[in-house]
Structure formats: C-alpha cells, structure tokens
C-alpha cells in the first residue's frame, strides 16, 4: 500500500505527464528508488495508483534492464554485453567480476553489496569494454580498474583471472 506521503510525491510526478501510461516508467523508477526493487506488492501498488492492469506494467518492468523485479545488492553492476565490448574483451571482465565476487551473471554477492547484470550497448563503444555501477559510467575496463572501481583492491585474491 502506498503511504499518503508517497502518494503526494507520486501525484507531483504524474502531473508532468500527459497520460498515465506516459508516467508509468517514472512511477516504477521512483518506487524502485525508494524501495530498493520492484516487489510484486510494489507492482500492484503502482497498478492501483495508475489504474493500469498490473500485467501491462509488469511488461514494462521486465522489459527495462534498469528496473529490478528481484532484490538487488547495494551497488548494481551493469556490464555491457553488446558487440563492441564483446570484441574488446568484456567476457574477460565478466569472468573477473564473477570470480572476485563469487557470483554468476544475474546474481547478488553473499554480503549483499553487489549485483551483476548484463546491459545492452551503452553508447560508449569507443571506450569498450564499458559498464555502469550505480549511476556512474566506467570505460576502458581492465581487471585492475574494475577492482579499483568496486573497492576490491585489498580483499585479496579469490582466485584471480583464469578460465
């Protein structure tokens, strides 16, 4: 259930859009920002609030990479898996992150700090491989640089970079 305060803020946001459909992605983003991720309950709240079928909203929520329908870690790593990054070794970066955090693509680290998900081309191909962590874009990635970005320099080796 939306709290009255949540409603006030959502009403404000909705007033910027000509139709409820146009407002729906922003409403979902807002809920995600405040609740961490979009639970089934949040989806129903959004559907009630917007007066749209929940199946339709879930279509949006599951379509967009940056809307999360499952709990995620404190920092979400969105690693580009499109062609330029792939050619420039994004697979190597993926394996490195997976090994360092002991997770697979799509999973959250045991300590709840990181979630690793793929993302489509970030428009940053000239500096491939690229990724977004939180709201920040990083490029020309190397394993060392990744450790630095994620603050993992001192945590020792979980096995390093091997196939």
């Amino acid at each position, binding site marked *: 259930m939306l709290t009255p305060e949540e409603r006030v803020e959502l009403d404000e946001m909705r007033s910027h859009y000509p139709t409820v459909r146009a407002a729906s992605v922003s409403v979902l983003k807002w809920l995600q920002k405040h609740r961490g991720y979009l639970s089934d309950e949040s989806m129903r709240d959004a559907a009630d609030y917007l007066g749209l079928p929940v*199946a*339709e909203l879930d279509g949006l929520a599951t*379509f967009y990479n940056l809307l999360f329908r499952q709990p995620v870690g404190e920092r979400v790593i969105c690693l580009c898996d499109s062609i330029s990054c792939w050619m420039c070794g994004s697979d190597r970066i993926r394996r490195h992150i997976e090994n360092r955090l002991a997770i697979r693509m799509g999973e959250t680290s045991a300590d709840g700090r990181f979630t690793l998900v793929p993302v489509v081309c970030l428009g940053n191909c000239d500096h491939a491989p690229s990724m977004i962590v939180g709201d920040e874009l990083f490029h020309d990635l190397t394993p060392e640089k990744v450790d630095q970005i994620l603050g993992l320099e001192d945590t020792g080796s979980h096995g390093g970079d091997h196939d």
Partner: protein
Amino acid sequence: MPKVTIDNKTYDVAEGRNLLEAILDNKLELPYFCWHPELGSVGSCRLCAVKQYRDEDDKQGRLVTSCMMPATDGARISIADPEAAEFRRSVIEWLMINHPHDCPVCDEGGECHLQDMTVMTGHAHRRYRGRKRTFTNQNLGPFIHHEMNRCIQCYRCVRFYREYAGGEDLGVFASKNHVYFGRFEEGALELPFAGNLVEVCPTGVFTDKTLHRHFTRKWDLQSAPSICTHCGLGCNTLPASRYGTLRRVTSRYNSEVNGYWLCDRGRFGYEYVNGNDRLLAPASRTDDGAPDDWETSTAAIAGILSEARANGTLAAVGSPRASLESNFVLREIVGAERFNPGLADEERRIVTRFLEFLESTSVRCASLRDANSVDVALVLGADVTSEAPLLDLAMTQACRNAGCRLTLTSLRRGRLSKFAADDLHLDPDQAARFGAAIVATLRGTPEPPEALRDSLPPGTHDRVRDTAAALSAARRPLVIAGTSARHRGVLEAAIQVAQALVSTSGGSKEPLVSLALPEPNTLGVTMLDAGEGPSLENLLSAIESGKVSTLIVCENDLFRRSGNPERLANALAKLETLIVLDQLETSTVEGADWTLPVAAAAESSGTFVSSEGRAQRYFQVKAAAGEARTSWRVLRDLLVDSQQEGSEAALEWTATHHVTAALAAAHSSLRQVVEIAPPGDFRLLQQRIPRLSIRSSGRNAMPDMTDVRQHVQPPEDTDTPFAFSMEGYQGRGPTSLLPRYWSPGWNSSEAVNRFQIEVGGPLHGGDPGLRLIEPGDIRTGSDGAGLQTVSVAAVPTGKLEAVLMLCGISEVFGSEETSRRAPAVAESMPPAYMLLNPDTAVSLGVVEDGRYDLRFGIDEEMRELSLTVRIDETLPIHVAGLPAGYPETAWWQAPCWATVEITGQVEQREPEKEQP
C-alpha cells in the same frame, strides 16, 4: 479493381487489401504467422516475405513483408523468387532455434500452423546445436494449458486478448529471446473468451485443457457441423468425438454470426454430454415387472397418451433447448392449445412481443456482424457479457474500431463498462424508465413525465439527454435488451426507442435491435407456438384442478421455469402420469413416472432459430449415449402408436428432413427452414461426406484400441448426408455441410482461409443459415405514445434497510443450464451468493464472504436459505442480487421487492477429512 502481378501472372484483387491478403485471396500459398484477418498486420514475424519489383524492368527487386504492403494496382511481386524462399526458410530456422521440437507430446501436433508453415517453407534440417531457452509455465485455470517453450513470439495471443477482446490479465514480459506470454501471477484467465487463444496461437503454447484429459489427434476426431446450445446467439461449432465421447468443441467459421470466435461457455460447456448424470435407458417408476426397454415403454406410454387424449386430460411442455423438429412433433401429439413452449411465462411474453415487433417493423434484428460496426448503442437492463457473450465481443469491436458510443444500463459495472460513454447502474424497472425517458426525448417531449424522472437516480436526466442526442445523430444505432432481467418493460422500452428512431428520422436511419436470449431455440419454439398454447400458470391450474392428468415434457426442467418449486412439485405429484424426455437428471426427471433418455444436440440433427432469427441446421456428430434416441423420433413413435388422428403422415417421417418439411408446410413463418441445408439423403457423386478425416488412424474399425476387427456397425444414419467413416466424398460440399476445415498443407484451423472467398470474408458458397425475419417496409408502426412501462409491484411497507429488490445476476459460468454440468465450467462458477452494495451490507450487519442464514419474504411467502454475501460497490443500494439459473434460487423468477432478514451466521468450518 487493382491488378497485381504475382510470379508473372496477373490477378484481380479487392480494394484495400495488403499483398499477403491478395495472395491468399487468390488461393496461392505463402506462409505467415503474425497476421490474422481479425487482428491485422504487425509485421513481427517476417515470414510472409516476398520479392517486390518496381516495374517490368526491375530484375533485382527487394524483399518486403507482404502483410505490411498495400496491394496497389500494378504491383509486381514474386513468391517463388529463390532469395525470398530462402529468407522464409531461415525465418523458420531462427524461430525453431528455441522451439523444443516436442510435436509428439504436443496437443497441437497434427493441427499446428507452425508445423504447416515449417513444411511449407522447406526447413527440414536442424543445424542449431546449442542450448535452448526454457520457461516455467503457469496454471491458467481449468480451460487453458500453457507451454511457453513452444512460443514463436508472433504476439497473436496478446493482440487478441488485450487489443481485440479488451482483456487485461494476459501480458507480455521481458525482452529479446526471453519474451514471455502469460499472467502477472498464476491463476485462471479472466476473459470469458480466453478459449480462442487455443485457435489464435499458431503453436502449442495455449491448448485446450478439457481436450487434454481425453486427448485425441485432430485427424482421429469425428466431427460434423453443429450449433452452440449455451445461449441464443447460435454460434456455429464443430464438436468432435472419438470412441463415443465428445472430445472438444472448436469454432466453425460463419462471417455473419460468430466469425472465428466462440465464448468459453460455448467452447468448454460440452462435457455435460459425457457426464455421469446422463440418462442412459428408458425407465418407469411403475413396478410391473415389465422390462423398461424402448419397445415396452413406447407401447405403454402410447396407451396412456391415447387414453388421456380421449378424455381430454393430456398436455405437453416443449423446450427452447430442443429442436424445432422435436417441439413440432410434440405439439402434433397434444394439439396447439395443449402445448406449452416451455418458457417461463414472463419470458414467453417478452419473446412473443419481440417477435410481433420484428414482424411489423422496418427495424432490423441485428446479426453479430451488424453489431460489430454500429456507431451508437444502448443496452437496456441486460448484462451482455453473460447473457449473450459473443455480443459483448462484437460490441467491443464496435467501440474499438467504429468509435461506437455506448450507453449501458445494467445492475452493476461489467466488462463493457470501460468502453461506455454512460454506464448507469439501475434496476430493471429503472432501466425501463430510462428507456422510456429516451423515447420521450426523441419524440420531442423534452421533459419526461415527472413520475418517470423521479424514479431515476439524480443526474440520470443528463444521461438521457446525451444518449438520446447520440441516438438521433447516429447512422446505425443499436438497441439491446435482455431477457434474464425477466422484465417486460425493458424490452418494451427498447422497442419503442428503436421505433422512435425510425419515425423521427423519417425512415432515413436503419436502427437495429437485439434481444439476448438464453437458449438456442427460444425464438424458434416461440414462432412454432405462435402464442396459441396455454401459459405455464394456466397449465399448473389445470393440473391442480385435475383437468390435466397426463403431462409429457420434452427436454425441459420445469423447476427452472416456474418460480414456485413447492407448488410445481405438488402439481407434478398430482399428475397420474408424468413423462419426461431429457438428457440429464433434473428435478423434473426426479418426479417422472416415465423417463426417456434422449440425444444431446451433438448426438442428433435438427434446426434451431437463433436470437437473430437465423434458422440453422445442426448435424449428428456421434452416436447417442447409452440407449438415448433423438427426441423427435421418440415422439413420432408415440404419435403413431397412440393412433392420433391424422398421424398417418407421421408414418412417413423416417428422417429429420421429413419432419422439417412437415413443420415448414404447417407454419408459414417457418416455411424457409427446409432451405437452410441439404436433406439427409443428399449425396455427392452418390457418396456421403465422411465425418472422419482421410488420415484417420482408426480406419473403419472404431474400437481398434482393443481389436481391429469391425464388430460395431456404425449407427444407421438417415438424418444426415454424413458417414461415420473416413470414406466417402473427399471434395468440398456445400458450406452447411463442412465437417472440418482442411486443405492439403493446411492442417490447423488456419485452413479456413482456403474456404473463404476473400480471407476473413464470407465462405465460398455463402455462409450457412438463413434469416427468417427480415425487416418490412413499414416505416411508422405503432407510435407507442403512452409510455407503457410495466413495473415491479410497489415497495411493501417495512423497515427500509430490510426491504430490497431481488434481481437476477446472470453469470457467464453458472446461469446456463447444461454448461454448468460440465466439470471445467463448474469449476469456474461462483458458488451461490447474495450480492449487496457495501452500504446495504453495513445496514444489514453483514460482511463480505460471510455465510449467513437468510429469510426472504415475498408477499406472504417466506424463503429460508444460507448464502455467501458478496459485495459490489456499483450495485444500487436497494438491490439484492441473486445468481440467475442456480438451483438455490429456483424459488424466485422475476425482480420483486422482498424483506431480507439475517437470521444467523453460518460457521465457516474446515471441510472435515473423510475417515478412512
């Protein structure tokens, strides 16, 4: 007419077609997935690619998706071009990458559009060796099975469900190769048309769960053209059977009636035919030791009948769910003045009035096709979705595509409400007054009489004005009334609105009218009866006074008609002999002295007249269960054996068409019914039309699961031109005799495009069925100056919160008599309830989902029963809604005021575990 050159041959094409349609209209072959004549083109599968050339000199050409390109005059295309053919082959190869290739265990196999298209494109070699993506399926309720791995992302399902039918709970999720079609969470699909997904989906993602329980491949199904019996619209169906059980029902295309669709009640209500409560053998209550076989029963009953006739104590009740033929023969046995057509009295008055009106007006009775394109519609006192489901789907199209302005007056918010410009929640009395107020406005009495206005909720006057203005400005307005409200005033108002539209427009408008009827032959039996027979009330009095002591009832449960079960039971008990012909155990059968089992519609042949006034023939699909026989045959034997005067003619009635001819000769209003389909002795090249497909693996030995020798001779069949065999005429017969849609290379339901003149249009040879009532040239008709609304008796005095108007709530699943006996439908039916507005619930001190002991007081009578309370904030506060057609509410028929008392609350106990 545009000319299009396809592979160097020139073809004529109708205006406004796309290239794919142009190709299919000319019966050329081109594979496609996402395009559908009713759902349009979206260009998502790319399978329909062809080469298009600028002009004769263009030798290069370019690939285009034919469903997205208009068939303009002079267009030049090639289907056969190697590059185009290779492209189409690769499209299938991509789509098959993730497909599980599980045809042997897939219910779609053998009638799968994906299989057909794969073969058509020539993709025969699988090169992909990688992993396939897999999905988790959902339980979508009792009707539809879900198997997402088979999806090819054509989007037909959501386009039908959401865009076409206005459903909300089926969605498309995720992206790329993970696109998922299903619900937000597991659970039954809410749309009462969800069954069409089975035919719309070109693969085995959505399949028929009821078929799955007794699965048979399409090629082993035995089928014949039939008519749906679960409401009055007369949708065309193809029931199919094997080894004596009915396996499924699919839609039979008729461009005037149901098009490609069926509702879920019509599609899944068939299983009552296989039910354990079928009557299987004649039975008598008399304990005379004589065997109850047909011969002794018929002889004994014939004796009783001739005696009763001699002393003038014989009467009969026919049925709106029995064929014209059966009703006709029954009426011949007892005579017109002793034949009751078997409708509740109020319903009979409504239908009789409707018929009188249709016969004397220039207003056209709307077909479903007409309803698809009206520009203004007014619904008076009807819940279209449950009373006439496919009319709801047609209205949905009118609102979506024709910008139809819809005014609804029904008890509560319903499925169509979201399309309505005005959605009023009124009791039937108020709905009738609302209609009357519109008539007054149309006729230029701007202020409706005060009495009228006062009885409508505040603010309704504006709605009257707006609706009247819209109707006046309309090109093709439609007025719909219902019968489940059991309120004559509603129909009267609808008739007068239509009539006022004719007279005030000087005949320039072509208004349409439609009356939702609950059963397949309500109109037919009323035409046959022509108002000559006694009312049920008079019949009951005659039984009570001993004037009638022998009653014969054909395919009718009188307890659904009477409204006073005790009185009816007493009267029936007073009869010397009650003879009942029916398919299922009913309360009427329980009290019968003689029970005669008769065939269901899928087991017999006959004629129904739909609510549109369209006479349609249905043909026997399978042998009748047990010893059941076709009603008219049983009745004919009784007619002949009881030595009825003039019954010599009946000696000649050995096939359905003989009876059809006799009834057409006897009733001028029905004279055309002989023309609607060829007679039973019709042959093509001296051959019958096979009910089984040429690929049938059963061959001629039906019980081949145990033994391949043919022990059982197929039943003798004089009634139809069909054979219980795969042998016979393999060409195409008349459209009224199409037992399946199949064409070489087209094994799925998409094969129907090979039978249409233009894809999505009428069938080659014309759509089957014949409208019996066409509007006359009468341009004025009765002016109905006095607003005769018939109203529910005045409010009895008493505490207001306890005095409520009892109104029937019609349920898609549950209100119709036979479908509620089908397991899948029974599972979808809400248990009996009392529906209240939340305010009313508060003043009665009841809460939602609580189960209460209730006492209803109508006049002097008291009724006690326990019901669950359900809440709907859109229901008027003075109404208590009770489900119509439920045995629990059989004591009550038409809207009336009643005192409602809560006498206790029923403990909700966990169902006790059975002791081992």
